[in-house]
């Protein structure tokens, strides 16, 4: 009556729809301005996460029992016209199922933590809307069988992350940091969109299964030519670098810590920061089609690891230190992917995500524990000098310290050579336009120039 395939299909659909329905419920309530109670939100999160997790575990059990390594759920062509199709497909294999389970597990833990941590916080509802968007994005990304589906989840994760960084939006710093995170994510999204189109150009579709043949993950090799793989791989590496804060996009990661602790834990310590590595794992056969791509991934990973290690050593707040520690491990995971160690990279990723979640959630109370400890002993805890402290001449050590303190000058370089010239150029164009319209009008042409930065009085009521 119920064969293996139909059970997997039903469970697979539950895995996908559970977080999507949660997002729809909370999102719709926000859209129509209906405030749900904390209890309702908490219950909805519990039901959604537990349902999704149980279904995902069910699929894993079925796949282990039947020794199947690759299941697909095709929801058909979302759009199909001559010369173009957009199919929605989900893959359940040794990469996606563990990652989906990890997402459910960590998101569930964080939801339980956040319901208490955010209790009576003014933005409670907003936090959980963004949380639901993030979970939906993570699950869609991890199970995506086509690059378009992956892109959908990727964008949801990006938007929710940026808005969560700016969660405490009464202060300017979180908002500015949120915007910066969004800018980097847009670069990453643009690269992924281009990669998606290149895939379509090469194969007339964005299906990973058709692009990668020769067996289920982690086996398989790509059928595309070396030159084509180079272009596609480059775009995918840029996309992954932006999402995983690899060098030179690392500057956003400590900035992202401005968000509430639950979001920092889940997004930047555990899941979001690993999404780039996950993408590289998914397309690893494409990377292996070119030795240059593999080498680039290894170099990128090791550079990031080294950078994060050095920078983490001088951080003075616990969340930033943890974020860089997390980044150093992500760098190593990426290097492992470049070296073709796919299973090791996956296991490393899963273990690291769990450890960091624990550390991030422990961070606020750890500080309190330290305070109690120091009060008890009556002095500061000692910090023994490491071997590195005696390495190299003093000048070099000072330079290295400054370098680490300034986080490798990455943000400063980005601001000086990209952001500032960009803003200056367009401000100059704006000034030229003003002169031109003033000249034609023969008077001041812009009413908007006379506006004050803020108008506290209410002009008129609707």
């Amino acid at each position, binding site marked *: 009556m119920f064969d293996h395939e139909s059970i997997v299909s039903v469970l697979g659909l539950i895995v996908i729809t559970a977080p999507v329905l949660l997002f729809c419920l909370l999102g719709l309530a*926000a*859209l129509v*301005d209906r405030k749900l109670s904390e209890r309702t939100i908490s219950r909805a999160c519990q039901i959604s996460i537990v349902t999704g997790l149980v279904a995902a575990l069910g699929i894993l059990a079925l796949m282990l029992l039947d020794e199947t390594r690759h299941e697909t759920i095709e929801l058909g062509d*979302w*759009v199909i*016209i*001559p*010369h*173009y199709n*957009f199919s929605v497909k989900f893959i359940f294999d040794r990469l996606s199922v563990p990652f989906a389970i990890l997402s459910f597990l960590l998101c569930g833990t964080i939801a339980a933590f956040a319901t208490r941590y955010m209790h009576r916080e003014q933005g409670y509802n*907003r936090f959980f809307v963004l949380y639901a968007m993030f979970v939906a994005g993570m699950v869609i990304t991890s199970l995506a069988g086509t690059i378009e589906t992956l892109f*959908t989840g990727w*964008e*949801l994760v990006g*938007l929710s992350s*940026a808005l969560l960084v700016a969660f405490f*939006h*009464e202060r*300017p710093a979180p*908002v500015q940091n*949120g*915007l910066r995170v*969004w*800018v980097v994510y*847009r670069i990453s*999204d*643009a690269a992924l*969109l*281009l990669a*998606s*189109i*290149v895939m379509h*150009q090469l194969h007339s579709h964005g299906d990973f299964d058709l692009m990668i043949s020769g067996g289920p993950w982690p086996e398989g090799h790509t059928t595309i030519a070396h030159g084509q793989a180079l272009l596609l791989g480059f775009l995918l590496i840029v996309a992954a670098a932006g999402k995983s804060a690899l060098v030179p996009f690392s500057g956003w990661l400590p900035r992202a810590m401005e968000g509430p602790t639950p979001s920092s834990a889940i997004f930047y310590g555990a899941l979001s920061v690993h999404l780039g590595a996950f993408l590289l794992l998914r397309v690893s056969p494409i990377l292996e089609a070119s030795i240059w791509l593999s080498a680039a991934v290894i170099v990128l990973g090791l550079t990031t690891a080294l950078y994060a290690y050095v920078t983490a050593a001088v951080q003075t707040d616990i969340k930033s230190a943890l974020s860089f520690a997390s980044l150093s491990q992500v760098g190593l995971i990426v290097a492992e992917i470049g070296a073709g160690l796919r299973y090791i990279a996956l296991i490393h990723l899963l273990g690291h995500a769990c450890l960091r979640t624990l550390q991030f959630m422990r961070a606020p109370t750890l500080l309190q524990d330290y305070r109690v400890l120091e009060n008890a002993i009556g002095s500061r805890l000692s910090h023994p000098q490491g071997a590195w402290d005696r390495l190299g001449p003093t000048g070099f050590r000072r330079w290295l310290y400054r370098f680490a303190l300034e986080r490798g000058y990455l943000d400063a370089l980005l601001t000086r050579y990209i952001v500032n010239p*960009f*803003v200056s150029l*367009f401000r100059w*164009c*704006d000034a030229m*336009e003003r002169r*031109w*319209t003033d000249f*034609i*009008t*023969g*008077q001041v*042409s*812009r*009413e*908007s120039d006379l*506006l*004050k*930065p*803020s*108008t*506290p009085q*209410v*002009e*008129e*009521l*609707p």
Partner: protein
Amino acid sequence: MTIWSIPWLELAILVPLVGSLIVGAFRAPMRAFTWGLCFTGFTLFCSVLAGLSVYLGDGSDGVHWTIQTTLFGRRIFGLDDFSAPLVPLVSLMHFLTALATGRTKMRRFSMSWSLASDAMRIAVFACEVPWVLIGLLIVGAGHGLVELINRGKPIRVYALHMSLYSGLLVLGWAFVDLDVNHRTQSAWATVPLMAAILIRCGTVPAHCWLTDWFEHASFGNALLFVTPLTGVYAAVRLVLPIAPDWVLQIIGVFSLVTAIYAAGMATVQREARRFFAYLFLSHTSLVLLGLELHTPISLTGAFSLWIAVTLSLSGFGLTLRALEARFGRMSLASFRGLYEHSPALAVCFLVTGLASVGFPGTLGFVAAELLVESAIEVSPYIGLAVVLTSALNGIAVVRVYFLLFTGTRHTSTVSLNIGPRERFAVLTLTALIFAGGLFPQPGIVSRHQAAVEVLDVRARCCESEVPTVVHANHAPPSVSADE
């Protein structure tokens, strides 16, 4: 006689015209508003049925009984696959803009004026005769001028550009009429038309009229004037069928430059209306670019993006208008902190803004994908530029969201949340954006059909030596493969 035999299109033009005359006679603003809303609502009803008649009616044009031949001696207005969804869209914009008008703005938002412009825009989007279409486009431009004069604002920038546009339009089409043979080769005909379209679409460097228009016109009228993308419509009807490839390439280059330039400008603006104007300009240019690539996929993408942009930017504009109604002109020089007072407006702002840049799950997502795909097919650099534009627009939207809704909380003793009518208007648009985004197939297929039809008209006009017509229904018959 079936429901489709009723001349819905003629009614959709006549009802607002009659309504404009009746409402113009009322002195009380509230009474004029109520009656005006009824007329606009009925116009929407008629135009939806007129649009549906193309797909569900017995004939391809959907009109069986018409008074046009009696009045004009020939048929002037009709719908085809391309214009069928645009006419209801224009009516919807008018209805929702009128509906979302605050009570305090009713004195300034003339219902009679709005109804007249509704009739004129529907007529533009349904017009089959080139000279009548040109006349209507020029009258439409004059309509804007009257608005500026009535408000006592500077008119020179607008008047200069629109005069040039009108003159070039007439000049170009005069040469088309003169040069019946080999019209596709005639630079005398196509270059003035191309220039006219570039000016009307606000292509760089002739774009200053659009930002100036947003500076000086009332926000509601400014929105209604630009969001239906009348300039792009003129390009499809007047230029695309006859222009040689090099003319289309020039338009494409200008559109691409404008798309990037406007997106860049949107990211640095210090005032909300100007930001909106540049965002709109960038999107219009992307639609125009899709047209000029003139492949079935690019046209499908452009036509889909057209609808997506109209809906999402109308919603976005109405949200900004609602904010303006509460706080006056919005400076973007500092954080405004409006979220806690207007959370629903913040959500609507973000949803409609991101929908305009093709966020997944919204109407523009597949359209943007199609456009990028077709652009890359023509040249990877064009594809890269389109993606860059989209990324910049996304950054601009979120930047302005942060500037308006975050920061130290704005203090007020009265509720500044969204009103019921505004909420209905924005939520209707949001529902359409999501419905089209989650179930895109019918819309994309319809736009693909329209794209094929437009390309067919172009192919037939290039081959034939009979005078050009603007509608597929009236294009010369194509030579079948068998023949």
